[in-house]
């Protein structure tokens, strides 16, 4: 199971059997250039693997106001 925090909302979600960033973005319905996918101090491109137990931040890129 991976844990995902959506920013800026701060909403937390968990996912089973999602092991690439590409799959995660599909589940979230997010376009790759519209969000940063953050693990620790690192940005993850679509092809990267993600593992059970990891915390991933998905941060919206668009600013408003």
């Amino acid at each position, binding site marked *: 199971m991976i844990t995902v925090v959506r920013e800026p909302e701060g909403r937390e979600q968990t996912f089973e059997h999602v092991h690439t960033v590409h799959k995660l973005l599909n589940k979230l319905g997010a376009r790759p250039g519209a969000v940063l996918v953050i693990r620790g101090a690192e*940005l993850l491109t679509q092809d990267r693997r993600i593992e059970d137990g990891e915390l991933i931040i998905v*941060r919206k890129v668009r*600013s*408003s*106001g």
Partner: protein
Amino acid sequence: MKCRRCKEPAQVALPSHNTAFCPDCFFLFYLRQIERAVKDHAMLVPEDRVLVALSGGKDSLALMVALAELGYDVTGLHISLGIPGSSDEARRIVTEFCAQRGFALEIVDTPALGLAIPEVKARLRRPICAVCGKIKRHYFNLAAIEGGYSVLATGHNLDDETARLFANTIRWDPDYLAGQGPSLPAAGGFPRKVKPLYRLGEYENACFAFLKGLTYATTPCPYSQGASFTGHKALLETLELRSPGAKIAFYDGFLARGRPAFEARCAAASRPLVPCARCGAPTNESPCGVCRIRALLAETPDAV
């Protein structure tokens, strides 16, 4: 995915440029895009004293860091608007950012000048973002003139610029089309204005801000619905997805082949600028628009 330059694992994929980079190589790419913008549009010279408009968002903070890294003499300018929920956060973030990185900062507090945006919104029957934008531009100009800065830099990015161009184009607004561009020369008492991030999209700026460890404001302005051409940005995004590079081609093509025609048409009709009798800002008609709003708010404190 590997970095195109050094073959380390890539962290930033850029389909518009058909490439991907590791953080260090991405920083080089990012600074080169700015250098190219600066060179192509004669934005800055090494002697410039640059006033950088800092909203607290990722674009403006990234711009400040990048210009400093490129060796420019930069000072930040933050306009604090008195908007509940977002202005305090923005001000705190900008103040901490400048303190941590040793940047000089000027702050203009519009409520202290009789122009708290919620009050302006309550009193005027015009879309608040248009008025707010006018007020911000006014104080950017005044701060640049009063502080003796040669140029004012803003963090407008490729998405902002193409969305604005698209909006101006579907309305075929000749004045706006003549005046839009990443570099506006000093004229009639206004400082030169430049947008060094115009070749870089929101995604690139967000990546740069994150990888540089910048804390930026994310609380949206409560009045921001429909602001900054959200719908137009979404349309252009769809276009970019289908044909990567479409946005920069649209914008660069306009600068090279579209704008000259509108400039020629509008030059003849432009009215001369005069100094505002109240605040000294250059304006078509004295008193300037912002001084008229201030007077209105001061005279009719209870009117709705």
